[in-house]
């Protein structure tokens, strides 16, 4: 693992009206590292990944990509940097097949501005093979016919196909059964082994302890702790999630704390 984080957030704050969704959050992930992002409901996990993805503008703090400060103003900026987000609802079109979904919005064109189906199909296959996704029979079947785990695999393959450097997975195993969860966790491990930085948002500590190298805990919009998975127990992490020490008490005016 490199010592140099590929993505780093320093003191990021985000406010929605009266609600302080994020307060001076620090977060970093290195290439080849699987970083889990945990926290109770409302801790700010979703807000944080949406800030990284450029869906929400941040109010304060800075985002560094590969050591350089960057401004991410939209999903396209994030994609251009190499940050891809796989949302919980996956955003796949049921009526399109696997290849069509993987290239949606980024279709490859041949002569006469015609869709280059052959090279798209080949590249989709190569990507799925490189991730050792073997459960999908045909890349020309519609996504409607795929299981939850297969859909997750397609969504992840879609995200990593574009030379992405950071892949953010939002609750990838939330709706899956045991065998499907296994498929997806294996996939997450392989992404890390291939040198990608993976941010795994999850509630499931069991999954996290199996695949994550590090754990960042959010509580009430603040980053509480960053643990090395090998050095903590699940109980300690649960403690951070539920009772981690806050630098600012929500509800109190900033001046009072300062």
């Amino acid at each position, binding site marked *: 693992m490199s010592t140099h984080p590929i993505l780093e957030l320093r003191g990021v704050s985000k406010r929605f009206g009266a609600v302080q969704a994020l307060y001076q959050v620090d977060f970093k992930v290195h290439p080849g590292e699987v970083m889990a992002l945990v926290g109770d409901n409302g801790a700010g996990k979703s807000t944080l990944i949406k800030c990284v993805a450029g869906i929400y503008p941040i109010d304060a703090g800075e985002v560094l990509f590969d050591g350089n400060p960057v401004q991410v103003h939209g*999903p*396209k900026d994030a*994609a251009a940097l190499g940050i891809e987000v796989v*949302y919980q*609802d996956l*955003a*796949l*079109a*049921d*009526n*399109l*097949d696997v290849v*069509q*979904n993987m290239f*949606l*919005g*980024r*279709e490859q*064109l041949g002569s006469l*501005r*015609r*869709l280059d*189906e*052959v*090279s798209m*199909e*080949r590249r989709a*296959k190569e990507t799925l093979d490189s991730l050792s996704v073997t459960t999908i*029979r*045909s890349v*020309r*079947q*519609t996504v*409607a*016919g795929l299981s939850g785990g297969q859909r997750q695999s397609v969504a992840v393959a879609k995200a990593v196909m574009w030379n992405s450097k950071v892949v953010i997975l939002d609750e990838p195993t939330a709706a899956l059964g045991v065998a499907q969860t296994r498929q997806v966790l294996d996939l997450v491990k392989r992404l890390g082994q291939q040198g990608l930085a993976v941010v795994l948002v999850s509630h499931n500590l069991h999954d996290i302890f199996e695949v994550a190298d590090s754990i960042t805990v959010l509580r009430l919009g603040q980053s509480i702790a960053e643990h090395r998975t090998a050095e903590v127990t699940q109980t300690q992490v649960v403690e951070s999630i539920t009772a981690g020490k806050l630098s600012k008490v929500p509800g109190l005016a900033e001046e009072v704390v300062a």
Partner: protein
Amino acid sequence: MSTQVPPVEASPAAPSTVAPAGDSVGDAARRWWAGIRAGDLGILPIIIGLLVIVVVFQSQNDRFLTSGNFVNLIVQLAATAVIAMGVVFVLLLGEIDLSVGYVAGVAGVATALMLLPDGSNELSAGPAIVIAIAIGASIGLLHGLLITKLGIPSFVVTLAGLLGWNGVVLLLIGTRGTVTIQNDTIIGVANDFLSDGIAWLVLLLGIALYAGVLLSGRRARAKAALPAEPIALLVLRVAALAAIGAAVVAVANDDRGVPYVFLLLTGLFILWTYVLNRTTFGRHVYAVGGNAEAARRAGINVDRVKIACFMIASSMAALGGIVLASRLRSVDTNAGSGSILLYSIAAAVIGGTSLFGGRGNIRSAILGAMVIMSIDNGLGLLGLSSGTKFVVTGLVLLAAVAVDSISRRGRENAGRA
């Protein structure tokens, strides 16, 4: 030259589905049969429906299956099929356009007025057609902007259009009552026929083109080591096109010949099928209809896709209006009224385009128009009233949607949704 076999055999689910690891015709047939049992009916219900229609009407009136009536049928279904092709784009989005009838009326009347031989500002056919279609496109742009930028449901916008454009038809006609078209080119669209030799030549070119497209596609896949269709199936497809095309040309030539409007239909069919299956825009239309949120996140400008589809629908309606005016050789205050709107939407749906968006193809417009206009034509031959026609057509539409619903359940059970 026939329109009944598409250049790319697409599954009803999505464009350009290529058979997986196909190696023999037997395998392909087995896959097809498995698809049908899982509710992927394709064009099977339509073929059965057409067979039933032919048997029923022929048994009631032996003039139904004559070459003369066949040519009549082609001319009669042309306007409906043209308008239905545009409707397919809107239905693919999961939207509706109720204004296509009177948009066709506006374009037909505008064309007739531009061609009025009153000396000073009479246009020739070409510019008149271009302007009429541009009027259609502008109407579609207006509808699209209202739907996407103001967020008014397409049902409401185009319902307002239904009333508004009806009014425009009446205002344009004014006190004239009926405007007769005297331009030979415009009248020729629906009333002139290819000479026998030219028709055969066009058919040969069409078959060669189709075979060429299939072969080059297959070669590209084989070169990339991707599963390709068995060569025998490819031969079968070309043979089917040749057989159907030869039958159409032979029967039509037995009477007045192949109408020019048939060439128009074929050209539009190829154009829009290409757009839907082979271009980024077409892919995005399916994506917006299937999951608009996914399309938005993929960076697709959803509003622009929608506006473009409404513009296509209105432009095709305008073209259909010109074809209709050409067939009737005149326009009057009834232009665009009556059954034309509902027949066009029903044609797309009967042909297999889903009202819920994301599923369908251009082929369905032509096949559906064939079904509806055969019924219309047959009941006309039997001398039955419009009342009976509408009741029967309504029942057929209901049957088609029922078949779609039942097969959809089958697809869901088989995980093919």
